[in-house]
């Protein structure tokens, strides 16, 4: 009786022992940019916390290049065993599939499976303090008066600060002139303060100090709700443009299926 009970127990645990419990070795998290940006920052925080809570090392591996496409391809082609993950964002994982359709060897939405959205970073429509319009309606009126005269900043052709303004222009039926800054927000924001460009869609993380100091002003909040930091700034939806503007997020992904290299 005792022996058969023991045998039963051994048989019952055998299948579980045949496969190592996950994670049984270090896990790498690919990041499609170099260190320091928002996606890298959240990936490192998550890696640190998962290392603590799951008892295995989660290691961030920066794989910048080709607008994030190198990391997307590496993740999609990695063995689908949970030991290669990716932390991407709305650009790499929802926009690149369309704008880089001819360059990407994979389809991110088909070849990667989502684990979780991690964070969102709110964006706002921001303008130089010296730019007369204070609302989206005033911006639209000024653009209608002098088509193409107002410049808007972005961090590159096809970046979502660019695409968001294109969406607004399309919805409002106005024309602004695009000025891409390859050096990113760190280059575009001083240019806006100097008045070289008048408006942009940028994230709050880089803008808040300049809004507080009065060198830039917020015309609209992009999220569905007003931002606690800017309670007097109405949302784009409140100003008649619901659904415009990227809901910028960072999220974690794993390869969906085994693919031939």
């Amino acid at each position, binding site marked *: 009786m005792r022996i058969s009970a023991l045998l039963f127990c051994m048989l019952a645990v055998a299948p579980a022992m045949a496969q190592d419990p*996950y994670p049984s070795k270090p896990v790498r998290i690919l990041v499609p940019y170099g260190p320091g940006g*928002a996606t890298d*920052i*959240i990936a490192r*925080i*998550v890696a640190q*916390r*998962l290392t*603590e*809570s*799951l008892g295995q090392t989660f290691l961030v591996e920066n794989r910048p290049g080709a607008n994030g496409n190198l990391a997307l391809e590496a993740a999609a082609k990695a*063995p*689908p*065993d*949970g030991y290669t*993950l990716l932390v991407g964002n*709305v650009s790499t*994982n*929802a*926009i690149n*599939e*369309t*704008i*880089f359709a001819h360059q990407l060897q994979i389809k*991110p*939405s088909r070849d990667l*499976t*989502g*684990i*979780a*959205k*991690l*964070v*969102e*970073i*709110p964006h706002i429509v921001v303008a130089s303090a010296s730019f007369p319009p204070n609302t989206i309606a005033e911006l639209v009126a000024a653009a209608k008066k002098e088509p193409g005269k107002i410049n808007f900043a972005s961090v590159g*052709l*096809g970046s979502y600060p*660019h*695409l968001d303004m*294109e*969406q607004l222009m*399309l919805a409002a039926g106005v024309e602004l002139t*695009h000025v891409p800054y390859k050096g990113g927000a760190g280059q575009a924001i001083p240019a806006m303060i100097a008045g070289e460009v008048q408006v942009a869609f940028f*994230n*709050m*993380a880089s803008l*808040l100090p300049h809004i507080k100091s009065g060198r830039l002003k917020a015309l609209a909040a992009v999220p569905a709700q007003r931002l606690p930091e800017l309670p007097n700034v109405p949302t784009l939806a409140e100003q008649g443009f619901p659904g415009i503007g990227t*809901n910028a*997020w*960072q*999220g*974690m992904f*794993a*390869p*969906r*299926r*085994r693919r031939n290299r």
Partner: protein
Amino acid sequence: MARHVRPAATPKPVIDRLHGAVVAVLTRPEQKEGLAKQMMSVEVSGSPQEFTDLVRQETAAWGAFFARSANTDRLAR
């Protein structure tokens, strides 16, 4: 032989384990506060499928936006 032991897809228990662990660590109050100071708001998905569906919807929406844009050439390389 080796082909049999290599998984064909990331196993669901692994996806679920990671999802649960990520949600648990990011939704701790002190973690949320720390991220809020960097203007990052913790917005974890209810399930892996919910996030996968969201990414697919957004990918389709961006595709549709490009398709209907009057002047697509200037939007991409």
